[in-house]
């Protein structure tokens, strides 16, 4: 009987692997690459124990513990440092890999009717579920082994074989665990979006719960599976039990998924799917309302992300002095200036990164219009009483406000975390002013996107190259010592670096003028061209 339920599982596994023959290796290689490159970089950056201790000091605050989990900061070797700063993040990404891969070959295949075709053939009822779990499990095991042996092969003193294998095993076990979580939700939810949504929610809740309990009550954090990764204390005490626990939990989840799959009908789920709204809210019934509604989730996620980004930068400001005095590479990035504190000198550099990051969501909001055009959905609006100017205008206004909100939230995050850790606090006006001085440069980017949409719609993706260029040239410019004109090609290169440089309004006004010109040209172009299909 059981054999019948699992007929052709091996064959289906091979089939699934064939479907994902590029996807899986890319995930595994990308994850391995980041695991291997970081200790190599750490070895170059923090060669002496003194430098590492300085780093450990900057990590010794609740904000960092919330982000990366706890670690033995008194024994901060390259190994402990790698495990502390990288393992949890990499494990979370491995969990994401499992969620996406398992959903693809469970609920997504079922939703699109492919599973129905397979089920009509002589394959077992549980074969496809177990075949996908088998493939993802194999991927996790390979990932664990490659990472384990790969780290050991680096030959770094503090990274022994046992610790390295445990590091790999922690990643693999997290992958298995979230494969199990996803397999269960693939039975519970009746859509692939629901499956991914619930599984990622578990991943995020695990992370947040661990973050909160790690700084408040460490024994409570045992309730979060992601905390088990840090409890393994890789390269320190090398505790295998949390990983064994994780694998056992994964097996239980696999069994639950099998049970649920066996007792349900095809295309059904256990969680009721909520019926949607029968009527549109008043808010939705305008082009602007529609545009906002379509981007709602994205905007909220970015807003939270920008605040967290600001806060995490802010949280390290307190330990800057000790950090910089010991780090040669960082000293090169910042040229000392008379009469300003190190924190004040550090802020413009942070602001370049923050403002460029804050440019991404508004530019995405702008390019969304182009996406709507390509999907033939703006025809619905333009064939009704909506003018092109109004349509483009609503996206532009949303973008411009979006950019302001993003940079402001990042500044607020930076200030609130920074003022808590820096002695004597930080001036909100100084931080906010420094952030806001980048806003005209952001407007130029947004308006350039408008210009491309109006005149060269096929090239609207090129805006990202320009954003990337600005990032490389301005953030790393100091390190590579580029000449000035290379930076001045980017609008971000013209922003006065408050508070170290003398503040000057003229370049900002010029940037605003350029932004206005580009936007105007974009509107004219959009009113003159064909809408594409």
């Amino acid at each position: 009987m059981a054999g019948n339920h699992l007929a052709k599982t091996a064959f289906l596994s091979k089939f699934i692997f064939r479907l994902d023959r590029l996807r899986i290796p890319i995930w595994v290689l990308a994850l391995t690459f980041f695991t291997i490159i970081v200790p190599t970089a750490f070895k170059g950056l923090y060669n002496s124990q003194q430098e590492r201790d300085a780093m450990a000091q900057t990590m010794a605050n609740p904000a960092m513990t919330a982000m990366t989990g706890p670690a033995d900061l008194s024994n901060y070797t390259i190994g402990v440092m790698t495990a502390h700063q990288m393992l949890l993040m990499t494990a979370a990404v491995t969990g994401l890999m499992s969620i996406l891969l398992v959903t693809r070959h469970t609920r997504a295949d079922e939703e699109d009717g492919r599973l129905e075709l397979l089920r009509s053939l002589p394959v077992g009822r549980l074969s496809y579920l177990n075949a996908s779990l088998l493939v993802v499990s194999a991927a996790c095991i390979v990932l664990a082994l490659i990472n384990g042996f790969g780290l050991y092969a680096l030959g770094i003193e503090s990274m022994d074989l046992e610790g390295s294998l445990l590091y790999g095993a922690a990643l693999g076990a997290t992958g298995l665990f979230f494969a199990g979580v996803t397999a269960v939700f693939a039975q519970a939810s009746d859509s692939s979006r629901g499956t991914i949504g619930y599984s990622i929610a578990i991943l995020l809740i695990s992370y947040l719960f661990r973050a909160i309990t790690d700084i408040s009550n460490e024994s409570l954090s045992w309730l979060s599976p992601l905390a088990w990764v840090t409890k393994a204390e890789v390269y320190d005490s090398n505790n295998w039990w949390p990983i064994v626990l994780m694998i056992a939990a994964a097996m239980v989840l696999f069994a639950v998924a099998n049970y649920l799959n066996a007792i349900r009908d095809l295309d059904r789920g256990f969680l009721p799917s909520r019926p949607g709204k029968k009527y549109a809210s008043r808010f939705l019934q305008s082009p602007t309302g529609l545009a906002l509604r379509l981007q709602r989730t994205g905007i909220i996620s970015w807003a939270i992300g920008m605040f967290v980004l600001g806060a995490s930068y802010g949280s390290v400001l307190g330990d800057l002095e000790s950090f910089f005095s010991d780090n040669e590479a960082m000293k090169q990035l910042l040229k000392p200036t008379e009469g300003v504190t190190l924190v004040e000198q550090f802020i413009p550099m942070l602001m370049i990164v923050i403002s460029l990051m804050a440019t991404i969501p508004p530019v995405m909001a702008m390019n969304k219009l182009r996406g709507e055009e390509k999907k033939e959905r703006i025809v619905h609006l333009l064939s009704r009483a909506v003018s092109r100017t109004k349509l483009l205008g609503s996206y532009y206004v949303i973008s411009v406000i979006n950019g302001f909100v993003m940079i402001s939230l990042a500044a607020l995050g930076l200030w609130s975390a920074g003022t808590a850790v820096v002695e004597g606090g930080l001036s909100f006006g100084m931080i906010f002013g420094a952030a806001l001085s980048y806003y005209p440069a952001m407007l130029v980017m947004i308006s350039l996107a408008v210009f491309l949409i109006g005149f060269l719609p096929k090239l609207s993706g090129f805006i990202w190259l320009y954003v990337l260029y600005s990032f490389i040239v301005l953030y790393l410019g100091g390190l590579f010592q580029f000449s000035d004109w290379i930076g001045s090609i980017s609008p971000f290169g013209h922003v006065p670096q408050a508070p170290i440089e003398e503040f000057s309004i003229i370049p900002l006004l010029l940037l605003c003028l350029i932004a206005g010109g580009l936007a105007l040209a974009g509107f004219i172009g959009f009113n003159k061209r064909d809408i594409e299909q």
Partner: protein
Amino acid sequence: MSLLKVTNLTKKFGKFTALNGVNLELNAGEVLGFIGPNGAGKSTTIRVLLGILKATGGEVKLFNKDAWQDAVDIHKRVAYVPGDVNLWPNLTGGEVIDLFIKLNGTANKAKREELIEKFDLDPSKKCRTYSKGNRQKVALVAAFSSDADLFILDEPTSGLDPLMEKVFQECVMEVKRQGKSVLLSSHILSEVEKLCDRVSIIRQGKIIESGTLNELRHLTRTQMLVGTSMPITGLLDMQGIHEVQESEHGMSFQVDTMQIDAVIRHISQFGIIRLESAPPTLEDLFMRHYEGAKDTGGVR
């Protein structure tokens, strides 16, 4: 009075000529069938009418206003249903209908409910889960709930089942009764035949025939099956006779509609026992245009 007048419309995409001198006219209270094979330029013409594409040459007027310049004013009185309805996957059908009705400017709540009921649509489902037919229903409900004077429908029934097609036809009849105008592009010919007062046929970017169905009859043939007491002679020598076949029931052949009188006179000499005839359909008309194009090897 003509609501819609297209004169000598050309549209080029780079070097490719999509429309090459299209002429169309639609009067108030009239249903105009716009037919042609795929890629003939039906949708391109409609997109120019809606000011989504800019004409390369010619004049396009709706309600005596320029389709490109006065697009927004025109659209206040127009309802459009595209052939491929792409909707936002994360909005429900009901939300999309409300949005469309609101953007059209004229709302009729009661009509909306009635149509949702008639088309048997579940408005609480996300558009992601709708089939092609259901997405089309969303667009149709939104269009017919509006208070438009001109309905532009681009192959609106390609995803609907026969039952829903009938509902659609009732909707068109109803707006026609209210004195509104419809431009119906289609290649479902029986639909056009049932609903339209006049027909324009487009092929390779040109209108090749235009007129009322009666006017176009000269292009059609009637299928006949005749049984006589004496064998018919001399039929093959007559004008306008095609595809003669003999069977046990009698002789079957096609006759040009213009020649029908002479042919009947001729065969009545042989003692008619049975006579069956099938009316000319647009299908035939369409097929003959295809044949004609093939014979001359290209655009006529």
